[in-house]
């Protein structure tokens, strides 16, 4: 097999993208999921529907709107271009923003359901033991929601690894900047370089499977059961 043609840059770029995206998603997703689990507001269903949109929309639709918003004339890209000289479309930062939106339901939904399963009871108990709301969240609700966090992290990471449409629309295909594994595979197949396509596809397949296997194993063995 000839490896001289093999470029590892897309792999590192993909891992970096997925890693940063997941961190952002946990920071953004936790308060959203918490709010969804505890609010009685009528806005709840609207927020739930909005968060779930990326699940049903074709990635090209989301990609199209993002391309416009992040581009030099866009409401987000415009001000950024004025400040820094370049817009967000076809940049790594743009990719992060797009991936965060695209993978949002995969993080919010598992967190939302664990927070609901944990419920208000342990929180009330913690408050009655002098824990402030923030304290109770950190020392009681979060450890009890550990399973949800693991699931959310893995799904968010794996889903970002596998995205194609949005990345292509928003990031284009710039080597070392926005060319991630899924796009590299597409390129190789287009030029009939099946060996490289095999290595990347097989690698992604194996990696995703192992990650999911690990998560399900950990979840099963986790000592905390919320009843």
């Amino acid at each position, binding site marked *: 097999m000839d490896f001289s043609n093999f470029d590892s840059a897309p792999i590192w770029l993909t891992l970096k993208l997925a890693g940063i995206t997941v961190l952002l998603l946990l920071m953004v997703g936790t308060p959203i999921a918490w709010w969804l689990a505890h609010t009685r507001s009528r806005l709840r269903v609207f927020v739930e529907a909005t968060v779930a949109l990326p699940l049903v929309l074709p990635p090209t639709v989301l990609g199209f709107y993002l391309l416009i918003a992040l581009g030099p004339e866009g409401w987000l890209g415009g001000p950024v271009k004025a400040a820094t000289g370049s817009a967000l479309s076809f940049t790594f930062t743009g990719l992060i923003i797009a991936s965060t939106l695209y993978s949002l339901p995969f993080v919010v939904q598992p967190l939302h359901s664990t927070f609901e399963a944990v419920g208000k009871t342990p929180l009330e108990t913690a*408050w*009655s033991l*002098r824990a402030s709301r923030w304290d109770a969240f950190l020392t009681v609700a979060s450890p009890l929601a550990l399973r949800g966090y693991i699931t959310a992290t893995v799904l968010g990471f794996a889903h970002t690894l596998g995205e194609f449409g949005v990345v292509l629309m928003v990031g284009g295909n710039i080597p070392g900047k926005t060319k991630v594994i899924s796009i590299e595979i597409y390129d190789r197949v287009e030029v009939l370089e099946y060996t490289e396509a095999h290595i990347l596809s097989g690698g992604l397949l194996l990696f995703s499977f192992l990650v999911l296997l690990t998560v399900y194993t950990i979840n099963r063995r986790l000592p*905390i059961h919320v009843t």
Partner: protein
Amino acid sequence: MNDFFANFDVSFPGFHLQTRLTIPKSGVTVLFGPSGSGKTTLLRCLAGLERSPKGLMQFGDTVWQDETQGIFVPVHERPIGLVFQEPRLFPHLSVRSNLLYGFKRIPVQERRIFLNDVVEILNIAHLLDRRPHFLSGGEAQRVAIGRALLTSPKLLLMDEPLASLDHQRKQEILPYIRRLQSKWGIPIIYISHSLEEILQLVDTLILLKAGRVVAEGPATEVFSKLELRGIINSEILGAIFDTRVIQHEPEFGLTRVQFMGHQLHVPGQEAKIGQSIRLHIHSNDVSIVTSPPDSRTSVLNILEATVMEVGSIDPAGYSVDIKLDVGQTLLATITRKSLKNLALEPGQKVYAHIKAIKMVHE
């Protein structure tokens, strides 16, 4: 100020709680009433878990809630201990960490109750390093009580803490709760359905029905109100007496107790002379005789009484409750036919024949 005031007005769909309460800051106050009467809601309002839109609550000199001024002290800033029906231990922490969860969160100078005290009084030393998952129901509930105590609360709120336990476990924990009282003098507000628990614990009784306070006061007074018929279980309608042991009659297997100048015989008790014993006399176990007692009766416990009040007569029923004064109130349930035959009227001197007595040691 030694009392605390709690006025609440809360509405939920299909339910309205409206209370104006003055609760003594000592002893055990039992909240009693049928399910759905608002006991738990009231307790949650007292704890601050529920915010009544028109609420006023003052604990001693401290205002915990005054909606006219927008004051509402959040749960975690109130010096209360809460014990629920279920133990609600944190599953991810050991028993020791559960016990210390609240303790670590109060300022050092406010700590009056320490791990060793609680472990000893609740007998949980052997459980400290276990996970809550491996505790029995009674053990877990003792830990939950200990955890609440370790916040050195100024008020302990307990919502049917023994309801999920069987009779034996209840008997195991009840003395501990009583002991907390004598050891630290923490006032307790206690929700219960069970006569047994009430008799062993109660000092002050608050009766709730459909979100309203029907009666409140010392248990011995509240318990014998005629209005309780239909509110409390008819099997426990009766009077409570606090008595003292004066003499044992081992040859007959009896013990004599005294209250307000009267003497009663009860089954032999393992109690010292002078020890207090609480009695419950069920209204169905009291009959009324208009002639003075003679030796031709097997009933030992006969008290001179005055008829105070004849209860309302239900034309569909056959019985009527009579309120008697024996120095304290005693209730008797007799048939409507007997009421007519004896022509009982308020002020009349009668004799109350007591056929059975239930006892509780303090």
